[in-house]
């Protein structure tokens, strides 16, 4: 089902069908057409390289811990540092995207964190090891620019898919690195003949180099929005340069952003924690060698190839039939099951059993991440970047919390920590019950009568701002998000009784309601 696009001359310059905001309404994976699909490929590849860099150390820890004389506490602290930097970096990135555009924001961050990866090669103590992991971890904020960019390029009907694929294939880096780094390490050892303690250092140049390449790609080949870059659009007056404090205010006062930040901490945060501890867990508990531990650990992250995108697609599929309520229900169920599987993982004592449970667990926890970002684009239009940043940052907070509580020092054995983490996942997922969209409903309550998408999204702008026409994109987004009512919501009146819309807006309603509901019945 496609939204009928106006046969304006503007549309003919896009390779994909677009909506009124020129966002693509279809997702064609094997295309690299500008600007939509090219943005997709640039963002997931560079995000992938950041993930590879951030988790390059864990698979090589059995070597690094001997070289740098690390204790379990040092390792735990470095693991926490790796994910804590991104907590604030993600919020900052969200703001930067809102203000400067995802292209500049992400390429800047990637180039600023690449030095941390290069300098990892010369770390010589627990303190310097912690510092390089800390600064490298900032690069995970590119997640926010990825999601923001996808939400700017793709229409609501495919945004879950686009977000899920770009996020998932980026997260793939966390798994791929567990294979790449041991492989690069052994290649260096055999071909260059370096000692163990030198080989791992040289190995770090590989992820660093790819990260740098990613930034170059984004800068030279990407653009912020379907119509162009922020810089050009703002100068031409087509895009209004928004006010930072307003954007920030509307993000932090929206309670849904905070709830999603918490729950994301217990799907994505858990994923990050597992990326940090799982190779050592298999190496130490089941006595497999470095190579094998790397492969097992990798398969956890590699499930991202289909599981996170699957979550995003599932979100879009549920929304088609059940609207936003479908998205929320699916998220809750999938994340709960993920928590249960995590609890089980710590209880299994055999190698084969552990691998099986870990794989099923990875699918559920990553699908929950994809499902979360099926909801995020709808929480706010004006402050999309900051909300994405908050949620993303919340993911990292979850990673910090779980590692501090369960995987630092020698208080719990690793298997105990994993089970307890599963229990915490289930408890923290319960808050999804409290998310409510007045125009669409929540888990247990239906939508409020007479409330429209316009009421919700335009409430982010003051009357003065509306007079100046700054809210136009929120208006367009409101129309395009009408499908979040699901099939049942088709009969709900779309005109608000509180506010009489202008003639222009009435015209839009007439146009779009006939095209939408005409096709659905």
């Amino acid at each position, binding site marked *: 089902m496609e939204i009928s696009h106006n046969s304006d001359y503007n549309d003919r310059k896009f390779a994909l069908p677009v909506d009124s905001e020129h966002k693509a309404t279809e997702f064609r994976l094997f295309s690299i057409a500008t600007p939509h699909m090219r943005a997709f490929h640039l963002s997931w590849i560079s995000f992938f390289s950041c993930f590879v860099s951030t988790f390059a150390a864990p698979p090589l820890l059995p070597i690094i811990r001997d070289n740098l004389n690390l204790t379990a506490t040092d390792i735990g602290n470095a693991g926490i540092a790796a994910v804590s930097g991104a907590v604030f970096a993600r919020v900052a990135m969200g703001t930067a995207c809102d203000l400067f555009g995802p292209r500049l924001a992400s390429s800047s961050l990637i180039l600023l964190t690449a030095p941390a990866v290069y300098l990892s090669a010369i770390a010589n103590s627990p303190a310097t090891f912690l510092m390089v992991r800390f600064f490298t971890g900032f690069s995970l904020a590119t997640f926010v620019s990825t999601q923001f960019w996808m939400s700017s390029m793709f229409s609501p009907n495919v945004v879950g898919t686009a977000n899920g694929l770009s996020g998932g294939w980026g997260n793939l880096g966390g798994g791929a690195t567990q294979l790449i780094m041991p492989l690069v390490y052994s290649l260096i050892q055999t071909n260059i003949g370096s000692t163990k303690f030198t080989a*791992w250092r040289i190995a770090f140049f590989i992820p660093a180099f790819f990260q*740098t390449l990613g930034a170059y790609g984004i800068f030279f080949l990407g653009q912020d929005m379907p119509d162009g870059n922020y810089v050009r659009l703002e100068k031409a007056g087509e895009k209004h340069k928004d006010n930072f404090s307003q954007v920030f205010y509307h993000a932090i006062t929206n309670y849904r952003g905070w709830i999603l930040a918490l729950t994301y901490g217990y799907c994505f945060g858990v994923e990050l924690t597992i990326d940090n501890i799982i190779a050592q867990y298999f190496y*130490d508990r089941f006595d497999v060698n470095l190579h094998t531990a790397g492969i097992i650990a990798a398969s956890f992250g590699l499930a991202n190839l289909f599981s996170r995108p699957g979550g995003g697609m599932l979100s879009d599929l549920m929304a088609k039939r059940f609207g936003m309520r479908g998205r929320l229900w699916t998220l809750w169920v999938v994340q709960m099951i993920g928590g249960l599987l995590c609890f089980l993982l710590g209880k299994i004592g055999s190698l084969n059993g552990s691998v099986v449970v870990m794989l099923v667990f990875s699918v559920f926890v990553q699908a929950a991440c994809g499902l979360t970002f099926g909801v995020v684009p709808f929480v706010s239009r004006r402050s999309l970047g900051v909300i994405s940043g908050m949620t993303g940052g919340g993911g990292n907070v979850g990673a910090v919390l779980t590692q501090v509580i369960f995987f630092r020092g020698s208080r719990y054995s690793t298997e105990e920590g994993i089970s307890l983490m599963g229990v915490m996942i289930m408890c923290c997922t319960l808050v999804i019950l409290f998310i409510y969209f007045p125009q669409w409903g929540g888990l247990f309550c239906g939508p409020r009568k007479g409330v429209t998408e316009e009421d919700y999204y335009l409430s982010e702008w003051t009357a003065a701002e509306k007079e100046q026409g700054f809210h136009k994109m929120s208006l367009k987004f409101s129309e395009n998000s009408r499908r979040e009512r699901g099939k049942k919501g088709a009969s709900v009146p779309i005109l608000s009784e509180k506010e009489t819309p202008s003639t222009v807006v009435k015209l839009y309603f007439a146009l779009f309601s006939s095209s939408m509901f005409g096709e659905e019945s």
Partner: protein
Amino acid sequence: MEVPSFLVVSLLFSCFVATTRGSYFSQLKNTLTVTATHPQGQVLKAGDDQITVTWGFNQSYPSGTDSDYKTVKVKLCYAPVSQKDRKWRKTEDHLKKDRTCQHKIVARPYAASNNTVTYTIKKDVPTGVYFVRVYAFDAQDVEVAYGQTTDAHKTTNLFEIQAITGRHKSLDIASVCFSAFSVVSLAGFFYMEKRKGKASK
């Protein structure tokens, strides 16, 4: 979508199918005397310094006790201070799980006396405090006896080893240069972007 309970039960059951074969350290007899000589009063450097280990059967035990000793392995082992907060070096009684002695010095057929080896500390030995232990194996390759340079509490006669850093000058320079290049590239990007902005008026 629930995990079937029988599956859970069978998975849990497999936890208990553990490998309990193999010997325990507490069952081994301390019938070997081991001495290690090395440069005194200094920290030994990996890759450079040498340790000379001599071992033999302790004659105060009845002769014939060593009749089933077929091979020996001489190992470099971590002292308790180097095991602290490092569970990958933990001492376990079950020798298959024990991680105290991770660095093999040499493996030899068993001889009651006149055993000696000069070992140059390998480059992959980490910084730490060590002692030397010799395990004797029977024909089935199961540990039956041992001897070590330190006492039962592993507090006397320990020596320190300092690992190599693994760093090289060329690596240092390459790191710094590439890092600087990244930052300079970024400055270049900003400059280009500003020019584009001015040009699109």
